């Protein structure tokens, strides 16, 4: 009777590997670069050079066997500063969006699911936060609470909440009207269960893709703040502060600005590429169902 459907078709065994091969070399290059940066940052302490030891006789020295990327304006090893800077940039770049995705995602899902007055309140307050100039807020908070990595992360995290809220709410709004949510209600599921088991797995895909883009943006913003002297306090290095410090010796040794700039560029590009690929990868499946 059901012979049309009886055979188990080949796609039963479609493994992630065959799908992954469609992702392309660019994607894998981006992944490789991200791993490279993460590993370098994780093992920064094993480096033979300190990022803060100054050698006044070797200021702005070109690349040599001793200093692979040369030294900066105060005679500090450029490579060591770059790698230690990766730590700061990645810590801030990852932790701030994590704050955003957690709080913003939760608020957005609750707003999109329960609607009503709670939604108006959340959307309204997020609009206020969005309307506030982010750089001014960052300036005000660092001026008031002082410069530290923690403060910087918190500011950038809070600034990211509205965007994550909007993505989560938009996804939840369309999903909450789908029949599988009504079907879950008809099966006696609680609100918590519907939110966590039915909606969260669906909302998470677009939210995670947005998270990767958020990492890229945060790294750039952290660089901009550090460049303005509002990021991490010296002598700690971050990519942004390295570019900022190299401004004074731009004519004598432009590489001091270019090396961290290129590193940041490649890292941000990698996050964007991976985020975009994941988004494109998850979109058709969402659309097909």
């Amino acid at each position, binding site marked *: 009777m059901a012979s049309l459907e009886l055979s188990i078709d080949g796609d039963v065994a479609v493994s992630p590997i065959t799908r992954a091969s469609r992702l392309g070399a660019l994607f894998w290059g981006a992944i490789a670069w991200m791993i490279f940066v993460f590993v370098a940052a994780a093992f920064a302490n094993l480096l033979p050079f300190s990022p803060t030891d100054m050698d006044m006789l070797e200021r702005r020295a070109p690349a040599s066997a001793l200093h692979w990327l040369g030294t900066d304006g105060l005679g500090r090893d450029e490579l060591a500063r770059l790698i230690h800077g990766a730590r700061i940039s990645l810590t801030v770049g990852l932790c701030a969006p994590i704050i955003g995705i957690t709080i913003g995602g939760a608020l957005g899902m609750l707003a999109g699911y329960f609607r009503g007055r709670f939604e108006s309140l959340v959307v309204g307050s997020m609009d206020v936060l969005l309307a506030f100039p982010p750089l001014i807020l960052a300036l005000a908070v660092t001026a008031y609470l002082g410069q530290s990595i923690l403060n910087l992360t918190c500011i950038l995290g809070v600034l990211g909440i509205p965007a994550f809220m909007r993505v989560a709410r938009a996804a939840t709004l369309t999903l909450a009207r789908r*029949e599988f949510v009504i079907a879950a209600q*008809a*099966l*006696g599921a609680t609100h918590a269960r519907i939110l966590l088991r039915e909606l969260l797995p669906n909302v998470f895909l677009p939210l995670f893709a947005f998270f990767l883009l958020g990492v890229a943006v945060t790294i750039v913003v952290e660089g901009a703040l550090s460049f303005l002297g509002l990021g991490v306090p010296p002598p700690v290095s971050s990519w942004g502060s390295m570019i900022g410090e190299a401004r004074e010796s731009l004519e004598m040794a432009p590489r001091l600005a270019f090396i961290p700039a290129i590193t940041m560029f490649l890292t941000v590009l990698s996050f964007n590429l991976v985020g975009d690929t994941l988004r494109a990868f998850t979109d058709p499946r969402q659309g097909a169902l």
Partner: protein
Amino acid sequence: MTEPALLSVEDVSVDLPTPRGNLRAVDRVDLTIGAGRTLGIVGESGCGKTMLSRAILQLLPKKARLSGRVMFDGQDLVRLAPERLRRLRGRSLAVVFQDPMTSLNPVLTIGTQLIETLQEHLELDGNSAKRRSAELLAAVGIPAPEQRLLQYPHQLSGGMRQRVAIAIALSCEPKLLIADEPTTALDVTIQAQILDLLAREQRRRHMAMILITHDLGVVAGRTDEVAVMYAGRVVERAPTPALFKKMRMPYTEALLAAIPKIDAAPHTPLPAISGRPPDPTRPIQGCSFSPRCRYAAGPCYREKPLLAAAESPDHQYACFHPIKAPAGVCA
């Protein structure tokens, strides 16, 4: 009906506020269904079939207003505390939706969806829930159930998905299953299989079923009783054989005439019901079907006919000019 009713819908109305005014989706409907029986609800799109099913399940949109009583197993669902209602759903009341594309969660494997439902309601541990899920899938005619448990809905065909949706609905042995156009989104060849499956499982589990459809052909062989709905009201209600033997309401006749006949000569025009269903935001004075009815005259345009029994208590209809002769399908 001798046995006490499992579900009785008493004077239920559903009003939906819309920007264009109040929309009465369901208008004072009375229905009963006994344990193990099948009730077909037939009507064209927008006549309130789905809203009625949602009203029974208490799953109406937030803005909708419901009046009347829905008695299920001696409890009034309308006034039941949300927590008790939640426990009742799934365990005693289950539903199969029209479109299996959207009624399954796209990012969870069907195993997860089945197993979690079982764990939630029957408090089974992981292994026995898994075993029971495989049994359920096998019962609804899915081959190689163990492998299928690991698949996502998009890896299954439409008919397969509807089978999974039925398996989930049946998982907790409900007393009443509401099948809301279960075959509309499916291929014609699969439709009969799904309907046969529903009928078989219903008999086996002695469960009551409400089969909602716009296709009289679907209810003909598979229901004990049929209620025909038009513009939110039940316009004719009868045991299935009686309805098809001598229908009284002109709308029922017109619906039956609109079924394509396989033995009709090629290029025979299909008799359609002229006009459109009335705008539910603007109630019509008189019978709602009168603008489209070929028998309408006199009182039809002035007052609403009430649903009443005539010659036999089972056969009720709301019409001033019922069809006298045994309805031929010659219209």
